[in-house]
């Protein structure tokens, strides 16, 4: 399994900076979503972004994968600085993501959804694909093999041929993770992977996230509201409030930081 689903390292060792966000600001008209935020994500770590509602977490993720373009600041991914980027460029560079609201193709099966994650890796032309013959068939077999490994990894064999619209929410989230993994990403962005899950589903998902990190060496940035999950999973945590960074450090440092406590519990004025 390890051999085929492996991220290309591009000479970055574990612990090197994979992605750096420098002084990024983003506003929508008069609304300032993100103000002057800087942080970095190191290769091989699990990085959490937390904060109260409306703190700008999802906006931050959207900036990282090129969906929003920040008015100020720079983003450096694998040593390449950029200011504007299209999501598909981000995807082809090795950034994959899941969404807060599950965004799967509901009428398609689990298998096809995960297969869709391989689109960018497909090389045969439209003509061959149309006939599903010759090189297209060979390629499909290779991709199917990788997809099957992901299915095995996420233990979703039983729903391989089930349309995802029929699946319970927790499983849909898992399929979405599978589709993101199918891109063999270097950086995986997870937007609230555990929202709306019950305890058992959360535990399963946590285990998968850790396994993805250790087994594939994938760097993970995740947004999550369940603080206990964040504290257990992540190596380092960034805390945002009203679009500003208020803390950054290990889970323990962040947990004991007075500004973070104030931001979550509120302070008397």
């Amino acid at each position, binding site marked *: *399994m390890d051999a085929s689903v492996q991220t290309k390292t591009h000479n970055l060792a574990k612990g090197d900076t994979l992605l750096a966000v420098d002084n990024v600001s983003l506003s929508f008209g008069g609304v300032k979503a993100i103000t002057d935020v800087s942080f970095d994500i190191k290769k091989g770590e699990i990085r959490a972004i937390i904060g109260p509602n409306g703190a700008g977490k999802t906006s931050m993720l959207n900036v990282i994968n090129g969906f929003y373009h920040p008015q100020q600041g720079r983003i450096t991914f694998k040593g390449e600085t950029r200011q504007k980027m299209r999501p598909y460029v981000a995807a082809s560079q090795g950034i994959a993501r899941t969404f807060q609201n599950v965004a799967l193709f509901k009428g398609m099966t689990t298998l096809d959804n995960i297969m869709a994650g391989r689109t960018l890796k497909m090389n045969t032309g439209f003509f061959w694909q149309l006939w599903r013959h010759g090189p297209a068939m060979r390629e499909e077999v290779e991709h*199917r093999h990788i997809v*099957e490994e992901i299915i095995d*990894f996420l233990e979703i*064999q*039983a729903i391989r*041929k089930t349309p995802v619209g029929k699946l319970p929410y927790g499983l849909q989230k898992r399929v979405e993770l599978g589709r993101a993994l199918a891109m063999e990403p270097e950086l995986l962005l997870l937007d609230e992977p555990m929202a709306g899950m019950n305890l058992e589903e959360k535990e399963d998902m946590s285990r998968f996230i850790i*396994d993805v990190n*250790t*087994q594939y060496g994938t760097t993970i940035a995740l947004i999550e509201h369940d603080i206990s999950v964040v504290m257990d999973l992540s190596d380092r945590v960034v805390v945002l409030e009203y679009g500003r960074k208020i803390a950054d450090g290990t889970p323990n440092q962040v947990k004991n930081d007075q500004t973070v406590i104030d931001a979550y519990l509120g302070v008397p004025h």
Partner: protein
Amino acid sequence: MEAAQALREDTFPKLLARNARVRGDRPAIRHKDLGIWQTWSWAEVYANVRALAASYHALGLERGDTIAIIGANRPKLYWSMMAAQMLGAIPVPVYADAVADEMAYVLEHAQVKLAAVQDQEQVDKILSISDRLHYLKYIAYDWGRGLRDYDHARLRSIEELIQQGRKSLQDKAVSAALDASMAAGKGADTSVILYTSGTTGRSKGVMLSAERCINAATDSVAFDKLNDRDEVLAYLPLAWVGDHYMNYAQGLVAGYCMSCPESAETVQQDLREIGPTFYFAPPRVFESLLTRVMIRMEDASAPKRKMFHYFIGVAKKYGEKILNGESVPLSGRLMYELGNLLVYAPLKNVLGFSRMRVGYTAGEAIGPELFSFYRSLGLNLKQLYGQTEAFLYVTVQPDGQIRADTVGPLAPNVEVKISPEGEVLFKSPGMFLGYFRDEDRTAETLTPDGFIKTGDAGFFEPQSGHLKIIDRAKDVGKLANGDLFPPKYVENKLKFYPNIKEAVAFGDQRDAVTCFINIDITAVGNWAERNNVVYGSYQELAGHPLVYDMIAAHVNEVNRSLAQEPMMAGAQIKRFLILHKELDADDGELTRTQKVRRGFIAERYQPLIDALYNGSQEADISTEVTFEDGRKGMISARVKIRDCDIVPVSARSKAA
């Protein structure tokens, strides 16, 4: 000829060698991996098992040692069993879902030196109890996921062990030593130790010898005419005698292929893909399949639904008769054929039963309706009665003598007698050597003349020679006049009516049998709707005179059927009442597995029992109930009591 040859191979590894020689290219085992069925031939399995045996030997596994096998049905775990047996070591399959504490007991009691396990979950479990396991040296795992960062001082991957074993077998001396070790295996040696699930007290390790296992399997292979073209799906727990018998022993004797499902959740799909020719499942599997089919039919379009129900009706009328070879009018046969084309064949295909030649069910009583349903579709479903101590079969139904209410005549070469107390005692070709390290309980289980006590009460039906199992022997009571009173037997007869959900019979040391009945609110509610019976609550429906009439008719029916069995005629129900509330596990009236807690109910409803026996027509009762949110409340009710028709003794003898 095949069977005669099998007798010469008196251990399973020798059978494996024979299969590799005789049918080396035939498939031996399949496993669905990454969505594709991977197949190993007998020759490949033999090579892998030899390699694995060499590695286990290198890890210190010697003749007489034990090795635990823990996990789901996977080729490498089956190979581990064969490899251990090749060395003369004894495999001990353990229930994979056992909690750490139970597992610690079994592993320590069996003194296992090695454990072959499926995955990280089992490795973690064993590591958590490792300070209590004094004999365990190494753990071999099948699936390495998540184990990369573990300390590998005592961990080995089975895949790597096979590779290493292959290399070391290139040395002629190693290879010859392994062959010698296999040849040294004797049929009288313990082949496997199967621990009973331990519902009563600590589990016991049932030791089975190789030749007895093989004798028993050879008998049943001949009985059901199994051969190396058969296919089975191995989905039952490894530690259960059913799996070891049906898949492992019979597979090696007959040389057929077993398929391991992709995961526990995909069994249904895998069943459909493999289409086994030989199938075994406990009644509840058949029950849930039927329910699923019926629910899905309710969602189908009206014409399809109509067609389905019409042809199921046809099958009910003619299906079983055709299967039993009885005479059926030509029009019936034609309709049945049409039904087969339109309904039965597609249905069987969906269920994965298209190629099923022989199917078995055992473990508990199967409802006659359920049994008939599958048989009417043309599935050769049969019942057997057996025990781990017998290496499964005691009685089995041969083709053409299939009935829902008996477990069949004796299996080949089995001897059975009924003790004066009514307990079933047997001697069988596969009978056990004893319990491992438990001579006291071995002695308790054996009679002085070498029969095994089953703990079940039963009797032979005089006309047919079929064995009927009544109940656990310790539950069977006697009426004051000395007639037999088997509570569960009576209750099961009642419960086969869809309107009756639960029944509790009383009568031990009393002068007559009486019983409490719970109606099934879905079935009776449905009936009420169709018959314009108005009701506001369970209690009201349960007390409705028309409902009483209906249940009384069922009870009378049961009495008539009891009267036809001379031994049971005394257990006819004299009076009954319908309880005002459903028996509930939250109130402690049922166990969590929905079994009736007779003693507790008798205590709690003492006033009602008194009323059943003192002849009164009504009784008052108030009981505490626990609601789902944990609050408690009282329910009071006045419950009516009905007398039933007892079929008199004269009619009884006429019926007999």
